[in-house]
């Protein structure tokens, strides 16, 4: 018998939808670029499916509804921080209602490659009030487990440069932090890492050292997931 669980939200949830208990679980992997999130997500998914658990994966941004508009708006650099923040919230709400909630209600394990915390950290380094953000995301489901892959900024920089992923927005160029892309990137990512650290305490993340080998990281993640799924028949 699988334990039923009453949905928990950051705030008032979605008053117009059912809050009937579900058997699904929401597992989030958070971390900056280059922290190995995708690798870990894939390993976790394979392992869960081998055990017979149904999984659904969801990434951050690019829902059907608003994904293209975000890409377009970013090209023009016309976004103010509020439009930026609200666009991400819209995108997330769309995926939550059409992807995440239906999967949880149907007993799937939802694996989220980043969650509201990423959006919150980006907004917070742009000066948006954490309290307001928490209320804005009051409709979001509280995850059952948040794995935080923590990578020190020097390693992060090396990995991102090697992958050729240093761009305008990931470098926080809209914030005028530094002389060039590199300076800005370093300062911006440091700010993001600090915000994630702060949230790690506030939101009970399981922080894992992302400089370890992928297998060693995965072993730790699986321990936590095993505890979470205890008593659950696949």
């Amino acid at each position, binding site marked *: 018998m699988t334990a039923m669980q009453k949905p928990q939200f950051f705030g008032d949830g979605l008053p117009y939808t059912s809050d009937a208990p579900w058997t699904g679980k929401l597992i989030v992997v958070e971390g900056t670029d280059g922290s190995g999130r995708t690798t870990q997500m894939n390993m976790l998914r394979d392992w869960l499916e081998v055990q017979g658990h149904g999984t659904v994966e969801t990434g951050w941004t690019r829902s059907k509804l*608003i994904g293209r508009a975000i890409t377009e708006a970013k090209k023009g650099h016309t976004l103010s921080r509020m439009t930026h923040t609200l666009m991400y919230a819209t995108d997330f709400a769309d995926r939550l209602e*059409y992807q995440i909630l239906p999967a949880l209600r149907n007993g799937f394990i939802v694996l989220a490659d980043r969650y509201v915390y990423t959006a919150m950290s980006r907004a917070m380094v742009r000066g948006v009030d954490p309290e307001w953000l928490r209320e*804005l995301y009051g409709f979001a489901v509280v995850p059952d487990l948040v794995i935080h892959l923590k990578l020190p900024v020097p390693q992060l920089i090396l990995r991102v440069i090697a992958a050729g992923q240093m761009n305008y927005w990931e470098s926080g160029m809209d914030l005028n932090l530094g002389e060039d892309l590199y300076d800005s990137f370093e300062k911006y990512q440091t700010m993001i890492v600090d915000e994630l650290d702060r949230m790690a305490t506030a939101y009970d993340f399981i922080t894992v050292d992302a400089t370890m080998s992928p297998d060693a990281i995965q072993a730790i993640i699986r321990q936590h997931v095993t505890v979470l799924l205890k008593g659950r028949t696949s």
Partner: protein
Amino acid sequence: MVQKGAQYNFDRPHPFPGKLIVVEGIDGSGKSTQLQLAYRWLTARGYRVFLTEWNSADLVKAVTKRGKKKMVLTPTTFSLVHATDFAHRLVYSIIPPLKAGMIVLADRFVFTAFARDVARGCHPAWVRKVYDFAIRPDVAFYFKVSLEVALDRITKSRAKLKAYEAGMDLGLHPDIMESFRIFQGRILDEYQKMIEEYGLTEMPAERPIDEQQTLMREIITQALAGVERHIERPESLAI
């Protein structure tokens, strides 16, 4: 000191030299007609006036249009997509003219969201919190009209009702006219609650157009005390 969700605050008057005047009310309340007339009058009196409508921002226009056409917007995404659009409009169309000392006339403001999104099922406190970054208008007119009069005006002037304005996404009634009646009725209830909550200026929207306009101009005149006119009044347009 922690910064607010926004630079400005909806709880207190804005610090700009310009004035923000907004009109609110359900479709068919005549608010846009009245705002247009006020625009003509103010311009003729030599004020620099900027007119802005909700949904005029092109940032998320494509999204809203597609989402509505395919009926995929949920109450929450409907609310957030409009909040995104509003934020864009605030930063690009409302605050700059106010800073420049102009009069901004806004056809619909946050109260539209408060009424419409709550009527759709969003939590009243949540919707209000989302719009915390907005600024407070100097005058907010609410054109109060009965459902029957509004419906009569709409059916006379328009061929077809739109699905979302009739609340068809909520499954209230299979008939679009009936659904419109139920949904707009809920919106009226929400507006009614806001008159006191936000001190909206109630307008007798079933009275003749010119009579309402006279009243509107009196109220605007009071609100504009101390606001400078930018150009000398052209004699030919003197009112």
